[in-house]
């Protein structure tokens, strides 16, 4: 009996040598490099085509022509565009985005302050979104067209269609104003501010590191409403996608195989079907998370949350281009990193991608 097909796959199974790993790592790095240069180029061009005179916003409208010219030279605007870009590139690589007009501090320092606030909010939001959204989607798929599926659909529909500022304001009015169950806008009550030393910039983490539970619970009571709001929007998306991925997998033949073996429905659904749903779900969650990390301007505004979304928006409204460009680069970097991370997870969960 010919068993030749036994050996054909032998080569593939062997452990990858170290050189192959290096090659993979180099490929990833190369992709990141290209993407980042592209991102910086686009950011730079946006900065130049904006109908804002950067000189004027530095020197003010009543400055004399001489002052104007001096500032023009100092900003390097007399040099050719390509030189300007290379200078910009060099500065960015050193983490130098220039000074913010509004805060009169280096943009990099501002970003170190505002980004952790957004990171904290988005992370709590996405965790709630996953914990509630994934099971909701799975149940909706398994009990397709039952009352629970319809409820899940309505929840998602509301999540898609209600404006965030409206739900946010109603939430504040009811849960903070009327019931007093949560704290109001801001990250902390005023008498808790600056008690714990800043390590990560995320108050939840910093207060735990300092073992100050009072600060921690105060921060929780502040973050729960805006994070819940963001969670709701990501939940709407995640649950719908989970449902459709699950429906697709439940139709597959290997599900019948699992049932033929005599497995319980629970094992069929969670071990077999969900095992295959995990993979595409990673992309969905990563995109959702990246969306939240951009900083939800409306949410941050309503809840006076000093995050990157409101930082960029304020910068934009006051012609503070350094702040805008710095913020954009950080957001872009976050996107690239999340993409790489989800690629790695993809390879981890899907043996076919190895």
């Amino acid at each position: 009996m010919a068993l030749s097909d036994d050996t054909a796959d032998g080569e593939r199974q062997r452990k990858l040598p170290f050189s192959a790993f290096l090659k993979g790592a180099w490929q990833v790095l190369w992709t990141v490099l290209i993407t980042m240069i592209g991102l910086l180029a686009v950011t730079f061009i946006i900065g130049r085509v904006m109908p804002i005179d950067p000189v004027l916003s530095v020197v003010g409208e009543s400055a004399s022509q001489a002052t104007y010219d001096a500032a023009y030279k100092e900003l390097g605007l007399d040099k050719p565009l390509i030189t300007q870009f290379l200078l910009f590139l060099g500065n960015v690589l050193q983490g130098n985005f220039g000074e913010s007009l509004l805060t009169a501090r280096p943009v990099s320092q501002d970003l170190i302050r505002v980004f952790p606030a957004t990171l904290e909010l988005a992370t709590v939001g996405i965790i709630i979104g996953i914990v509630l959204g994934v099971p909701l989607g799975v149940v909706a798929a398994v009990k397709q067209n039952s009352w629970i599926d319809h409820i899940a659909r309505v929840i998602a529909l509301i999540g898609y269609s209600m404006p965030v500022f409206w739900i946010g304001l109603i939430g504040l009015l009811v849960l903070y104003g009327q019931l007093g169950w949560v704290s109001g806008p801001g990250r902390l009550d005023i008498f808790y501010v600056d008690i714990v030393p800043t390590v990560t910039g995320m108050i939840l983490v910093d207060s735990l590191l300092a073992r100050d539970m009072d600060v921690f619970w105060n921060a929780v009571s502040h973050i729960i409403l805006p994070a819940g709001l963001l969670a709701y929007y990501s939940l709407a998306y995640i649950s719908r996608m989970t449902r459709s991925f699950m429906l697709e997998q439940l139709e597959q033949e290997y599900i019948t195989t699992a049932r033929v073996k005599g497995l319980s429905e629970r094992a069929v659904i969670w071990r077999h079907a969900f095992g295959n749903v995990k993979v595409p779900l990673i992309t969905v969650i990563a995109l959702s998370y990246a969306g939240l990390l951009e900083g939800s301007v409306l949410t941050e505004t309503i809840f006076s949350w000093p995050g990157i979304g409101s930082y960029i928006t304020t910068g934009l409204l006051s012609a503070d281009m350094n702040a805008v460009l710095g913020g954009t680069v950080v957001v872009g970097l976050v996107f690239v990193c999340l993409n790489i991370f989800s690629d790695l997870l993809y390879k981890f969960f899907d043996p076919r991608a190895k």
Partner: protein
Amino acid sequence: MTNLLDVENLTVEFPTRTGPFEAVRDISFSLGRERLGIVGESGSGKSITGRSILRLIRPPGILKANRIALEGTDLQTLSEKQMRDVRGHKISMIMQDPTVSLNPVMKIGDQICEAYRLHAKASKAEARAKTLAMLEAVLIRDPERVFNAYPHEMSGGMGQRIMIAMMLIPDPQILIADEPTSALDVTVQKEVLEIMDKLVRERGMGLIFISHDLNVVSTFCDRVLIMYSGRIVETCRADALHEAKHPYTRGLLNSLPQLEHPVDRLQVLQRDDAWREAASVSGAVKVGAAVKSGKAV
């Protein structure tokens, strides 16, 4: 002696826009410790029949039967939990295409161990040893490697041998093979069938072999049911297939090329709507009557 399996008046319906469609219409048959072939064209209801026995007709499909009895116990009276104990453990099924019937993100060894441990309360180490032995039994050369491999790393022939190992490891009494080789290369078909045949004989199991390939069925089965449009139109011994009486069976046989009797032009298969309602030419099956292995009709 009771039969391994008695199916009485099985009907499977699917609701459609134009009213219910009966995929299987009022069929009855029995299975002893023999190899029973079910042959028919696509849509004749043979796969649905196989799945009905395992009670795996998913809603909105509706299964109706007087009796589907496994050694005298009507499977329809069992709870879903009791039925799960029958699936795999007593009646198992080999699916058509191994490339889609194995879980792509689960190691092959884990999938086989899972089937074993579900019914035999064995430790992980015991299950692993048993799985490796089973992989060897289906003539897989390097069981250790295959144990840790994923389905996409296997060829179709290997995949189907893995499927056979997985479905036979809980030692079922009945194996349903639903077109086990139609997704495989012709060269691999024979070796997979021989492995399956050997194991089924060794274990003295009952086999229901669903196929559209008359040649294969007549080689590997003792008895053949011919299905047409949801009905059994004829039952005959596999070695007496050439004596079949029903015009549909004759048509199927005549549309096959024969090496000894070459013809210029093969017959085109004719179908007659009258067959849809006509009774089986082999007469009504005496329900409950024991079938003797390989000889009864």
